[in-house]
Structure formats: structure tokens, C-alpha cells
């Protein structure tokens, strides 16, 4: 069976410890035609990316995905197909800010755009996140109009690999060129 892959379909990794907010962000993202993987902690997010929590050694991310996390995306060498990470700020253990720092410190994943969400409007918090590499900061509850702001950040990254063909799960070559 031929699998048609939308050339503009992006994969977003959503991180939030609240079950309700995870359901909401997942629906918002899918409504906007994003593929979504939703996890409930920064640790699980790093696991999914293949980054060990203790170090960001490049070799670590060649390990296979954790099976407890569901995702439609085909893994292709270093490219786990995550095009954007959207994370809650306030989470037990690793905060969204901690996660942001780890991503930006990683040689493999530092170019993945990271967006932070928070229910609290604290300017110093917002500025710190933006200064340390977050693309956007959304106040919760997140709306469709916020999610619509994501695509430009993703298009920026995608244009780099537009000449390279994508592979579907069945191995068929699908061109991503315009």
C-alpha cells in the first residue's frame, strides 16, 4: 500500500505533566495538521530524543526509541523527525526551562525550535526563556491562534533539507521538493 506523506507534515514533541493540557495541546496540534508525540515529563522527552539525562553525548541518540512512547514517526539515523518541541514550564523534576537548556546544549538537537508554555505571566521568566533560546512563549490556555504561529519556525528549519527525499515506513521514496 502506498503511503502518501504530506511534504509539509511536521512532527511536534509536546511535553506537559497535566493530562488535560496534554490532551488539549495534542488536539490543537493535530487540528493544525501536525504529527504529535506527547510525553509527561522532560525526562521522557529526552528519552524519546535519545538524549541521556546525564550527558548529551552524540552516541547516545543512536540508541533505539523507548517503546513506552507512541509516535508515528519513522526513525532515520540522527533525525528522529522531531521538528519542534513545545513544553510546559512548571513540571515536577525537570522544568521546561531545564529541558530547553539541555536541548540547546546538545549538538544534535540544538537547532530544534523550542516553545515554552506557562499559565503564569511572569516577565522575568518569559525573558529568560527567550534569551536562552526559546522561539516563543505561550500563555496558557494555549489556543489555535498560538499554534498557528508555529509553522513559520518549522518552515525555517525544513527548508534546509528540502532537497533530500523522505522515506516512508515501507521504504518508498517520496520527494519533498516543491
Amino acid at each position, binding site marked *: 500500500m502506498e503511503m502518501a506523506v504530506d511534504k509539509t507534515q511536521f512532527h511536534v514533541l509536546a511535553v506537559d505533566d*497535566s*493530562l*488535560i*493540557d496534554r*490532551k*488539549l495541546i495534542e*488536539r*490543537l496540534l493535530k*487540528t493544525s495538521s501536525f504529527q504529535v508525540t506527547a510525553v509527561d515529563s522532560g525526562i521522557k522527552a529526552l528519552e524519546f530524543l535519545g538524549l541521556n539525562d546525564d550527558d548529551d553525548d552524540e552516541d547516545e541518540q543512536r540508541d533505539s526509541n523507548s517503546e513506552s512512547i507512541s509516535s508515528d514517526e519513522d526513525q532515520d539515523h540522527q533525525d528522529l523527525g522531531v521538528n519542534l518541541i513545545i513544553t510546559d514550564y*512548571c513540571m515536577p523534576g525537570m522544568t521546561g526551562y531545564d529541558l530547553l537548556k539541555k536541548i540547546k546544549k546538545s549538538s544534535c538537537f540544538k537547532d530544534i525550535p523550542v516553545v515554552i508554555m506557562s*499559565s503564569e505571566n511572569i516577565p522575568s521568566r518569559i525573558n529568560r526563556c527567550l534569551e536562552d533560546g526559546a522561539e516563543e512563549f505561550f500563555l*496558557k*490556555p494555549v*489556543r*489555535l491562534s498560538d499554534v498557528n504561529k508555529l509553522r513559520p519556525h518549522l518552515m525555517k528549519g525544513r527548508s534546509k533539507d528540502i532537497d533530500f527525499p523522505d522515506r516512508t515506513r515501507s521504504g518508498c521514496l517520496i520527494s519533498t521538493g516543491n
Partner: protein
Amino acid sequence: MERNPMRRQLQTMRKSLFDQGHLDEQFVQLEELQDDANPNFVEEVVTLYYRDSARIILNIEQALERKPFDFNKLDAYMHQFKGSSSSIGAKKVKAESTVFREYCRSRNGEGCMRSFQQLKKEYATLRRKLEAYFQVARQAGPMETACRPK
């Protein structure tokens, strides 16, 4: 057609929820995410909210039984509750959560207890009204007006 009176009733119930301040614009945002592929999205989210709320309310109740009050813990629980209430558009419940948190910050135990009683009342009222609303919604069938236009 027999559906129409049910839909009218549903619209009246819905309007009342907004007019009485139980729900805010966020609830409309949820309705707009509902479509043919996800026809029960709003009710699913609200059902998760009930479950989540029951858990948090129990935690707060237990925390209020321990003296002296751990205001940081109480505040943390209420932060969660406020967040989920906000996500479904539970306006009055969210407002009362804010009051509770202010009492936590000013270390006012009496205030916390009073506010918590009020919060439980508001939550119970909201839940009762929403359950009635969804019961009618199920009987009325799909409401095109509440769905996102294609």
C-alpha cells in the same frame, strides 16, 4: 422533528452556563476543536477534568488536616487545579483558586479553609450543570453550530 426542542434546550443550557459566569471563552475554544472525527472531544476533556479535580481536591483536603498547614504544598496543589480549570474554561472555579492561592501566599489558614469550602461548592455546581448539559447533548445529537466550520 423531535430533535429541535432538545437542541433549543441545549442552547438555553449553554447560554446559561456562560451568562452565569460558570464558563468562559476557553470552553468555546474546546468546542471549536470538536469535529466529525472527534465528536466527543469536549466531553472527553471535561471527564478528564472531573477525574483530575477529584484527585487534587482529595489531596488538598488531606493537606488541610495536617497542622501546621504546609502553604507551599497547598499552593502547589491549587496551581494544578487552577491550571486545569483554566484549560476547560471553568471561570468561577478558576477565580476561587486564585483567592485560595492568595491566602496561601499570605499564610492565612482561616482564609484557605473558607476559600476551599467555596471552591468545592463552585466545582460541585459546575459539575452538576455540565453533566446535565452533556446528557442533553447526547440526546440532541451532533450540534453543527458548536463545531468548527469546515
